[in-house]
């Protein structure tokens, strides 16, 4: 009787199904979403794109955040098909650092112009740096995770960072806000100096003058 009961329980037991179990699907989205937030160099550059767009006003305010994800995806695509920049990863690191430095400088200087050529210059500059960011970030999918969900998370996070920059740029309409934004630009540019030093020295310790300059700029902007 016990034997029959055991067999009946065994037959009624929920069986294991080994095929088509998809592990890590949701984790793919999380990995992609977290990636752009994982480095200050990326955060600084992407927020700077949003702020600069807000300073420039229409149509740059929407053109730059539209251009950046598309060109960044192009950089990611290059990385995925193993199309490397000359100089390899060092070139990418220098490009990312330069993006923070130059975009920060643009925000700091509140550089804008009504000439149509300037809009093209801004789009090309932002797009060029997008290639480096995409190449560095778009290719690091953990094993077993969905490429589609990773890409969705990655692009949405980048858009959120731009949104943060644009939201911050709203204060540009007030005189004190314009000064504050230029201070933020100075911080980003000096951060770019620090990242550039790290990229050139291969991760070595940054010079004390560079670190001091960053702290000084933070202090000045707070004042």
């Amino acid at each position, binding site marked *: 009787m016990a*034997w029959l009961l*055991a*067999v009946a329980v*065994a*037959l009624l*037991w929920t*069986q*294991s*199904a*080994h*095929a*088509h179990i998809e592990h890590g699907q949701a984790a793919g989205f999380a990995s992609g979403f977290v990636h752009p937030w994982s480095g200050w160099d990326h955060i600084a550059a992407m927020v700077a794109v949003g702020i600069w767009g807000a300073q420039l006003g*229409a149509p740059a*305010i*929407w053109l730059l*955040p*539209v*251009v950046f*994800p*598309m060109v*960044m*995806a*192009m950089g*990611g*695509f290059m*990385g*995925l*098909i*193993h199309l490397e920049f000359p100089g390899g990863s060092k070139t990418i690191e220098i490009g990312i650092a330069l993006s923070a430095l130059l975009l920060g400088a643009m925000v700091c200087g509140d550089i804008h112009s009504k000439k149509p050529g300037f809009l093209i210059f801004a789009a090309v500059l932002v797009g060029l740096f997008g290639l480096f960011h995409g190449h560095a970030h*778009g*290719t690091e*999918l953990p094993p*077993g*995770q*969905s*490429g*589609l*969900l*990773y*890409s*969705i998370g*990655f*692009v*949405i996070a980048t*858009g959120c960072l731009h949104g943060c920059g644009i939201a911050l740029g709203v204060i540009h309409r007030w005189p004190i806000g314009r000064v504050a934004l230029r201070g933020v630009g100075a911080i980003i540019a000096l951060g770019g100096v620090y990242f550039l030093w790290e990229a050139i020295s291969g991760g070595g310790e940054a010079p004390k003058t560079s670190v001091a300059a960053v702290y000084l700029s933070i202090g000045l902007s707070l004042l």
Partner: protein
Amino acid sequence: MMIPTMRPQLQHHLRTFVRLFAIALLLSIPSSVHAHLVTTGLGPVYDGIGHFVLSLDDLLPVIAISLLAGMRGPRPGRFTLFLLPLAWFAGGLFGMQSHPAHTFPIQSISFMVLGVLVASNLRLPAEIVAAIAILLGAIHGYLNGGALSAAGPAAGTLELLGILAVIFVLVALVASFVIWLRWDWTRIAVRVAGSWIAAIGLLLLGWGLRGGNPL
């Protein structure tokens, strides 16, 4: 004298071992799996709805064509609302018969083309939008039909009807919402969404060419 007393014990242990082994064997037999079709327990129509809603490679292009149609106005919106589900249904029926094997680059191309069209805000005539909707519906429906037939003999037209219902509702909601948008910044937000879809498509193409898990 020891052997007669040991033998029943040995037999008992042996029987117990065989029984436990049989139970373990039964427990370890994997059950049949209905591949790639969400089983909601609510019937085939809801299974189709669940399948579509959870298939982002189908969902995002439908959202993109709805955004495109909505940006172009009510007439392209109406064309898309009726023609996309019909083309999807026709493609689905055809796909059920022919079982398409490879689907990889099609989704990424759909993402990129539709995303770029939305982001660039091209002033396409209603007829062109309708043609794009038919093409999208026929191709993705064909792939959907193949996926349904691969899921098992039970899957069929009712699942496809569930998919059509959810496509109709989705296009109606998204396109009418975009038509209703009047402020500049809201239409810019739609274009930004288009650029995101194009970017996702390009990355998806890269994952596929790299040989990883694109979907």
